């Protein structure tokens, strides 16, 4: 009996295994991989239902907008809308593209073969455009135009709201329009009744600078490229929660806010932003770039990056 017990004990003891040192591994299992590049000129890009819409400014205050799709190793341009004036901003709700330009407000209808002016409104030169439901919000200097586009053939101005300073940025959701003026002030406008917008609150940003405003996930994201940070405010039923969280960034000039991920750009890096814990944002991966991108967009796990001469495709991969 004693021998059996001793044998069992020694057998177990012989299984000594000091393998408690672990290997280094990627902290979050998120990787970025540059998979393709195409010759393409443009300044801004929007992805909509498998089609890329690109705004390209030329050197003579003229602009082009074209739609294209990627086919294997090549890129196919479907239709182009050429304007001999500057298009400042655009928004896509396929098949319509809404323009804020020197000419005011225009709606262009894109098909697979052509792009035609569908309708337009004679308003002052417009600089920023945003879309929510059946309305577009267009910033013209210090005025906010609310335009009903239920019938794209005949858009109607529902309301005009004047602010004391030039509008620098604009974002909307179904209840509120967020309007930044004079580099400091954020105006919160209730647009539940679009024909009677009501200024419900104003708040002062913690730092000077033009902000790019984005609304997503029930939050307002305010990107300040002067001081390199994003402020995140929670939109509540009774307005904007003034307590904000923030993400500090390293010398970036462009921010894209997506569904699961966003990204910011500096001169030679793309910094992927994890959005899943919004309003807590964090840079979760970095990818070095050989060229300086101007803008970009994410569709699911694909990132489209536009430089002055190329379109780069990168993929987000996960798994430790």
């Amino acid at each position, binding site marked *: 009996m004693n021998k059996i017990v001793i044998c069992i004990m020694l057998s177990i*003891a012989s299984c000594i*295994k*000091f*393998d408690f040192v672990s290997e*280094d*591994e990627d902290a979050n299992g998120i990787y970025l991989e540059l998979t393709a590049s195409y010759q393409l000129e443009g300044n801004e890009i929007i992805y909509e239902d498998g089609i890329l819409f690109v705004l390209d400014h030329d050197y003579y205050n003229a602009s082009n907008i074209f739609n294209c799709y990627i086919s294997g190793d090549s890129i196919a341009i479907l239709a182009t809308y050429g304007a001999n004036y500057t298009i400042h901003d655009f928004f896509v709700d396929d098949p319509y593209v809404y323009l804020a330009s020197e000419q005011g407000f225009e709606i262009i209808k894109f098909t697979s073969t052509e792009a035609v002016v569908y309708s337009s409104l004679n308003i002052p030169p417009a600089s920023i455009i945003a879309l929510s439901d059946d309305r577009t919000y267009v910033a013209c200097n210090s005025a906010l135009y609310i335009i009903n586009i239920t019938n794209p053939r005949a858009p109607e101005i529902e309301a005009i709201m004047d602010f004391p300073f030039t509008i620098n940025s604009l974002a909307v959701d179904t209840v509120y329009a967020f309007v930044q003026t004079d580099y400091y002030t954020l105006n919160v406008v209730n647009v539940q009744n679009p024909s009677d917008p009501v200024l419900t609150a104003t708040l002062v940003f913690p730092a000077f600078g033009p902000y790019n405003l984005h609304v997503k996930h029930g939050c307002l994201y305010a990107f300040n490229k002067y001081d390199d940070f994003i402020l995140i405010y929670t939109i509540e039923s009774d307005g904007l929660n003034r307590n904000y969280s923030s993400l500090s960034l390293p010398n970036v000039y462009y921010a894209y806010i997506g569904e699961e991920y966003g990204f910011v750009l500096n001169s030679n890096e793309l910094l992927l932003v*994890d959005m899943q814990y919004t309003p807590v*944002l964090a840079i*979760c991966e970095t990818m070095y770039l050989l060229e300086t991108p101007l803008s970009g967009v994410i569709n699911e796990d694909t990132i489209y990056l536009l430089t002055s001469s190329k379109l780069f495709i990168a993929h987000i991969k996960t798994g430790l």
Partner: protein
Amino acid sequence: MHILVFTLFCSTVTGIVYDRDTQIPLQAHVSINDREYVHVCDSAGTFTITGVSEGSNSLIISHVGYKSDTINLAPYPYRVPHLTVGLQALPITLDSIHVQAEKLSMPDRRKVTFDELRTIPGAEKDVFKALQTLPGVNSPCDFLGLLYVRGGELNENAVYYDGTEILHPYHFLGISTIFNTDMIGSFDFLAGAFPARYGGAVSSVLAIQSKPHPLTISGALSIDLIEADWMYHCPVNKIVTFTFSSRRNYLDVLLENLGIVEDVIIPYYIDHQGNISIQTPLGRFIFDGFKNQEKTNITANIAGERINLEIDGSGQTINGVWEHAETNTIKTWGGYFHSEFTQHLFGEIPGVSQTINHAEEDIYTKKYGAFYHAQYTNGLVKMETGGGTGTYVYRHDGPKAVDILYGINSLETVYDIDTSDIYAYFYADQRFSILSPFVCELGQRLEWFPLVKQPVFSPRIRLLFDGTPRIFMGYGLQYQTPPFEYVTIETKAYYSKTICCGIEHTIHPLFTGYIELYRKQYRHLMRDGGYYTSFDGSGYANGIEVSLRKHNDHGSFGWVSYSFSASKRTSPYDAEIRTSNAHRPHILNFVYGKEFANGYLITLKCQFATGAAYYDLVGVEWLMDRWAPIYAPEKSYLPQYQRIDVHFGKNIHVFGFTGEVYLTILNITNHKNIQGYLYNSNYSMQKAIFMMPRIPFIGIRLTF
């Protein structure tokens, strides 16, 4: 019952003696009618008597508490068979026993005795490792004796040794406690609404009782692959007794010689503990002393970057207590204690642009004071009151170097604190029978904490239905001070409001089942806002604990317990007020020990639990000139925790010593339990820190 196995030669008589009912071997006395001396059976109950002369005709077998048996040898003139003798137990008549009221124990008091403690795998040398098997308790790490109790934090537990609070019961990070197990008689663990006698802790109280002081010389010597210790108890006469013990671990020597110096804690500590007891007509004077020294190195290498932390510490505590029994019903005890502790930490982490950041942290704490308690007991009625006052000194210089272990790569925040303030407490507790079998215990505790500029009152109510089953209810407020390095002008004592209800049922004389529900609300929790510290944090813990305990019966004991805890609380490291998951929601523990008749013993300990709650790293942000981590707003849980330990032992008797040779195997399945993660300076790479691998170690423990 009587089984004849084999025979021996005529001049030798052999046999074995059993209890007739339980078949447990008895160390009975065996004598032959013509012999003057008596032979004593060994622990297996066997005996061999040689040189039995002709004419011997009877064998007398006797044992205390049993009816003696006489066997006639006449029928075996030449060959005496191997005898198997079953003795019949007798009822023992005892003098009447006066049961004092303080013997009434509330069901929420969990007791583990020394005999159980020394065989629980991994707890042979550390009382706190045994605590980790009790319901409602979990630990942040296998290596450490630190405790999370019912959603509480590590610093929210109080430890009393023979009634005196121990300021620093742990070595650095809780690697080990400062107590020698051989000095401990038993411990009580209270996690609910504990009596008014105890304060300064919102989560739990561990009351350790030292071993009784017999009037015989005794001692213990223990050595294994990790640690060696000794204890010597010496009564000078019937008045004065001394007890001393020391211990020293040499895991540092072992690991360094094995070349294991990275990604592991390399601890060194040496502890001395002493006790002098003087019995006089005025009462008993007890002096306890603790002297500890430690040195710990932690080095980790992550993606080519090195993190290093070196800790030097020492502490000493002395206390003197005067116990006096005025009458059979009135007992008083009072005394003085002085405790101080110093620690120096040196940390290194990668800095900006390939530089190394250094940090040095110095901590000095001192607490001294006096106390006096009085207790009256008469039957179920108990009245107790007491108070104490003293001074708490705290000095802290430099940044918190230890933060580098928590993934905090900035050592720029300096906590220079030099403070000293008085503390005081007074309590009164009364127990009485409302209407038999209902017992009520009402208590009120008044506390004045250092730097908290106002008194706090802690009412405690405990109700017991002392029938079948026993039903217990408790309610209490429990206060404590925050860590002193965070104190501000508006320092508040934080508290937990506890309500609990338990049912204890004796299923069988050997088995007791217990179920308890509790709800704890935490208020005034500290929150480190970066620029200031505020005390507006909160939290809660709701839970249920179920346990079934088998009481020690001839070396067979054990318990199985399941705990569910849903707890959320403000983290001290959060800049925002938010509550997040705390610790493990599900914990299942199983402990079973069995001592066999032949002197072998085995104890099995199994622990299964949800992984510990932790803040998952989401990513980073760029702050000024470096990357800073951003964690998820809600805590996630690490992978499931599993650990099975086993302790094999064999009782031995050598050179006049009795003792045990044992083999303990920790984490026998070698399950890789993750304790947490360390990150490199830009938080792009991580390294999992595993807990205990499979570790077998052999030891021997001798007593006399």
